């Protein structure tokens, strides 16, 4: 069960990491290694060169910016889950980070690696999509930003270029908002069968939903926003009938689910509706019976 042989470089700066990616055909960046390493062990990926970015200073922090929160790419799931800043300003992300694997995995995996890996089953994408986040990347042509809605192509492919490194995840913060993440865990793998991230913004009185984002992950071909659910929420009153109307829209076409003999599309859609209702009950603070 050894991985294929590879050449290993440990970069000490983002510029050096990019240079190593450019100059080595097929090179892959590696952060916490919890996404890439298992796939190298099974032969699903066999990069000839690995560029370890763990030695780069300044990529492991959680900071408040004018727009919101900036989370360094190497920040671990455990650090995000216990961060008071994240718990306060981006609760969906704290909950999703805590939902990843187990404590050993949360100590090892990082947010940048998680998002760049593009595993459609990952927890964090649903939270980052719901929070309206983006990733900062640096490549040979400089730095740029990729909105989460553009990031996930499915099947371990993302908008991040071959020679680019994710350096940070940006999460906007605004008033009158609430967010959460709800997961139905596959008991064997620990990954979500269905995970739902939800974010809402109300008017000052908390009576009307002014903006909403809802996103799903898990058995889907890629993590995605659920626009029909969002549209049912936006402009509606904060009450139970709004949630019922939104949950009625929580369904995904069969071809957007991966084939899974243990979980049909109909079953996953049932889970999706139940988890969406649970998430909306939480963010709209409505008691359920």
């Amino acid at each position, binding site marked *: 069960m050894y991985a294929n042989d590879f*050449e290993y470089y440990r970069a000490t700066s983002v510029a050096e990491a990019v240079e190593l990616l450019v100059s080595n055909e097929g090179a892959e960046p590696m952060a916490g*290694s*919890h996404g890439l*390493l298992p796939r190298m062990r099974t032969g699903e990926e066999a990069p000839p060169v690995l560029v370890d970015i763990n030695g780069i200073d300044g990529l492991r922090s959680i900071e408040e910016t004018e727009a919101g929160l900036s989370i360094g790419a190497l920040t671990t799931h*455990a650090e995000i889950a216990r961060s008071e800043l994240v718990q306060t300003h981006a609760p969906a992300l704290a909950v999703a980070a805590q939902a990843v694997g*187990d*404590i*050993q995995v949360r*100590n*090892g995996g990082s947010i940048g690696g998680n998002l760049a890996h593009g595993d459609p089953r990952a927890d964090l994408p649903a939270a980052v999509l719901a929070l309206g986040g983006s990733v900062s990347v640096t490549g040979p042509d400089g730095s740029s930003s990729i909105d989460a809605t553009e990031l996930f192509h499915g099947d371990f492919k993302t908008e991040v270029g071959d020679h680019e490194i994710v350096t940070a995840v940006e999460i906007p913060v605004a008033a009158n908002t609430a967010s959460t993440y709800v997961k139905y865990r596959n008991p064997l793998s620990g990954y979500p069968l269905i995970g739902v991230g939800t974010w809402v913004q109300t008017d000052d009185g908390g009576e009307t939903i002014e903006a909403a984002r809802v996103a799903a992950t898990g058995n889907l071909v890629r993590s995605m926003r659920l626009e029909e659910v969002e549209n049912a929420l936006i402009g509606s009153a904060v009450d139970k009938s709004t949630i019922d109307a939104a949950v009625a829209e929580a369904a995904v076409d069969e071809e957007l689910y991966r084939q899974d003999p243990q979980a049909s599309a109909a079953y996953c859609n049932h889970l999706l509706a139940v988890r969406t209702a649970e998430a909306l009950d939480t963010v709209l603070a409505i008691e359920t019976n």
Partner: protein
Amino acid sequence: MSKQEITLSVNGATHELHVEPRTLLVTALREELGYTGANVGCETARCGACTVRVNGDAIKSCMQFAVQLDGAEIETVEGLAEDGNLAPLQAQFQAHHGLQCGFCTPGMLMTADTYLKDAENPSREEIREAIEGNLCRCTGYHNIVDAIEATLTEGAPTNE
């Protein structure tokens, strides 16, 4: 592929070793350095039998290449006992029959020992969540939770 020289501190002892980049941390510990406490179970980050501490955090040592950890401080189950005496947690595992075959025990101990450093009056449910990354096929977990709980409340077993 050429081997690389790395330095690992294991239970306070410094080791220099040459490893292929693809060598896993658990393989380096077991086969290069002789620390066979960490077991190789599932090799896919599920079972937790290979859990060790890396720079203070519990980590599955099958999920890291050894070269990534050049200069890191590793703690394994071999470092828990002092002067040949079982640590309180280990003694409580013994007292509460927290193991049968023992394969999961080194990883279980490292996860629990790390958890106990910060735990404040946890419920049994919270203890179970803390060890969710470690699978045991023998005990049904009850005795393991008993042992961890007893370590918190009484330290080492009070009488035999």
